[in-house]
């Protein structure tokens, strides 16, 4: 040590502790309470409706449906409530995209549009931690709310399943039950957040979120879902009522003959079976040595399918959120 040695100014950074995460909870609540209140009001109002009509429905089901698939049940229960249940399930399909678009899309887009990100991202909390904190808290909040809501819907829907009015794999209710509803809500939120970061304006980001979500939901329901597991094959004409028939076709002598639907089926039937035949087309084809095959997903696969759908949606959401945070770290101003 000599007098010439200048003591190195201790770098404050060496012992700098970051601002604690828990402070982000207050910040998130304060800034997003109206969005969260909106979600609560939307789900709350729907829940009250489901609860009130559900109670009546369950009562009617208990009195009218002995046994569950009787004529009395069809007349007094499904006949009375079926249309309402269909409308409700269609309406509920719009809930996840609405939550995603109105909580997720403005989250970053509003900051970028109004310039407040210049304030938020220059505070000592640090911008990627700020983004991560908000995203995780809000994602957990909306996912949990959606999960709780779908439990209520499952209860509401239960009599229709029991009466055989709807099958577990029905496109209309599959993604409203189990873990799928929460997973779709999370995915909508993640899509919204990324759209907001990329587009940087609230209204276009909301529109983009709704469009992307609709595309993804259609693709999943119409093409992806039937491939989650290899379908079972059966040559039985009568499949269990809960089965989801993926495809049907006819074979003769062990080789494919024609599909069991569409124009090739119609032309085969008119060629092989006379118009005034006393037997039904399928019996007629069976008499002529054709056997009908079906590939189907049995109703017992409902939960594996739920977990597969929930799993890939969760992975997608985590990926989208990670990309968003990466963009926030990297790109700005």
């Amino acid at each position, binding site marked *: 040590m000599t007098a010439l040695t200048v003591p190195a100014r201790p770098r404050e950074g060496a012992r700098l502790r970051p601002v604690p995460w828990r402070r982000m909870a207050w910040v998130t609540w*304060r800034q997003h309470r109206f969005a969260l209140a909106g979600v609560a009001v939307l789900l709350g109002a729907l829940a009250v409706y489901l609860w009130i009509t559900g109670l009546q429905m369950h009562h009617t089901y208990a009195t009218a449906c002995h046994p569950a698939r009787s004529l009395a049940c069809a007349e007094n229960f499904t006949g009375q409530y079926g249309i309402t249940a269909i409308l409700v399930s269609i309406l509920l399909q719009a809930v996840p995209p609405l939550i995603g678009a109105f909580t997720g899309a403005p989250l970053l887009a509003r900051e970028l549009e109004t310039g407040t990100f*210049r304030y938020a991202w*220059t*505070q000592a909390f640090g911008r990627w931690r700020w983004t991560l904190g908000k995203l995780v808290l809000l994602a957990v909040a909306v996912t949990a709310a959606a999960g709780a809501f779908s439990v209520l819907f499952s209860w509401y829907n239960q009599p229709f399943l029991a009466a055989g009015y709807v099958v577990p794999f029905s496109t209309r209710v599959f993604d409203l039950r189990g873990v799928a509803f929460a997973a779709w809500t999370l995915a909508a939120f993640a899509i919204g957040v990324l759209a907001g970061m990329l587009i940087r304006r609230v209204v276009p980001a909301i529109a983009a979120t709704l469009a992307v979500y609709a595309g993804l939901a259609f693709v999943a329901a119409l093409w992806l879902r039937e491939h989650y597991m290899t379908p079972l094959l059966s040559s039985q004409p009568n499949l269990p009522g809960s089965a989801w028939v993926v495809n049907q076709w006819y074979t003769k002598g062990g080789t494919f003959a024609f599909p069991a639907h569409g124009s090739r089926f119609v032309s085969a039937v008119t060629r092989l079976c006379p118009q005034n035949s006393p037997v039904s087309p399928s019996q007629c084809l069976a008499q002529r040595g054709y056997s009908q095959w079906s590939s189907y997903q049995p109703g017992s696969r409902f939960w594996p399918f739920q977990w597969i759908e929930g799993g890939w949606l969760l992975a997608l959401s985590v990926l989208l959120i990670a990309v968003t945070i990466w963009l926030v770290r990297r790109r700005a101003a």
Partner: protein
Amino acid sequence: MNMNVIEASGLGKRYGGTWALRECSLAIPAGHVAALVGPNGAGKTTLLNLAVGLAAPSAGGVTVLGGLPAGSPEALDGIAFVAQDTPVYRNLSAADMLHLTRNLNRRFDQSYARARLNELGISLNRKAGRLSGGQQAQLALTLALARRPRLLVLDEPVAMLDPLARHDFMATVLAAMADDGVSVVLSSHALAELERVADYLILLSQGRVQVAGEVDDFIAGHRVLTGPAAEIGTLAERSVVHVRRAEAQAHLLIRAAADDPVPPGWESHPVSLEELVLAYLREPGAAALPGPAREPSEVTR
């Protein structure tokens, strides 16, 4: 305090195909109110965004507070930034904004912030979006100062304000400077305002540093010579920044000290900062004062 609050070397930022800032090397020492001046599009906001870590450089590098990487947690901790148009969350009350800022920082002087807002007559219950432009700017400045930063960075802080609000805003900045020794870097178009507050000047033009140095040295190093326009040729060897002709008279802004000899037939006058800045802005090719030698940010052991 013997450090540079902002130090850039070969700093450049490109947006798409155009360079908003290029080849920028400068060192702004601590303990000053440093003014960043330049025409629109000169790269002032870009430079400040780079310094506070909002943007990442396309070329070169920038450090702050004696060698901290811009945008690092340590740097964010020591710098408070008030952006152009002083953004605040419009739907939050002033009290919420204080609480928000307190929660996002390690240090926050709540009693100072409350006292100042009280002094300014800004009600804590008022939504930030319902405050006047001047009050919003004061709120943003109060939030920044209550963080007790070592460096305060202000981007066009007074552009939207009326003269009275400008005066009050700058008075607050100067008071903080005097009380806490906070260094200030601000960009502004309001040249008259700068003359009152700034003691260090950086002139940016077309994305490059044209002038950097202490205001007093800058003013003392220039004179205006007034004389017959016909005799301009005799001054050819002088270092002339800008020539203004008025009828038979010519006004030459030259680089010279007050006691430099004046050629016969010419008169020498001191020059104001505003005149000087305008002359340099009109002559983007002229450069002056490379500024202090850049000090190594690491202290030799």
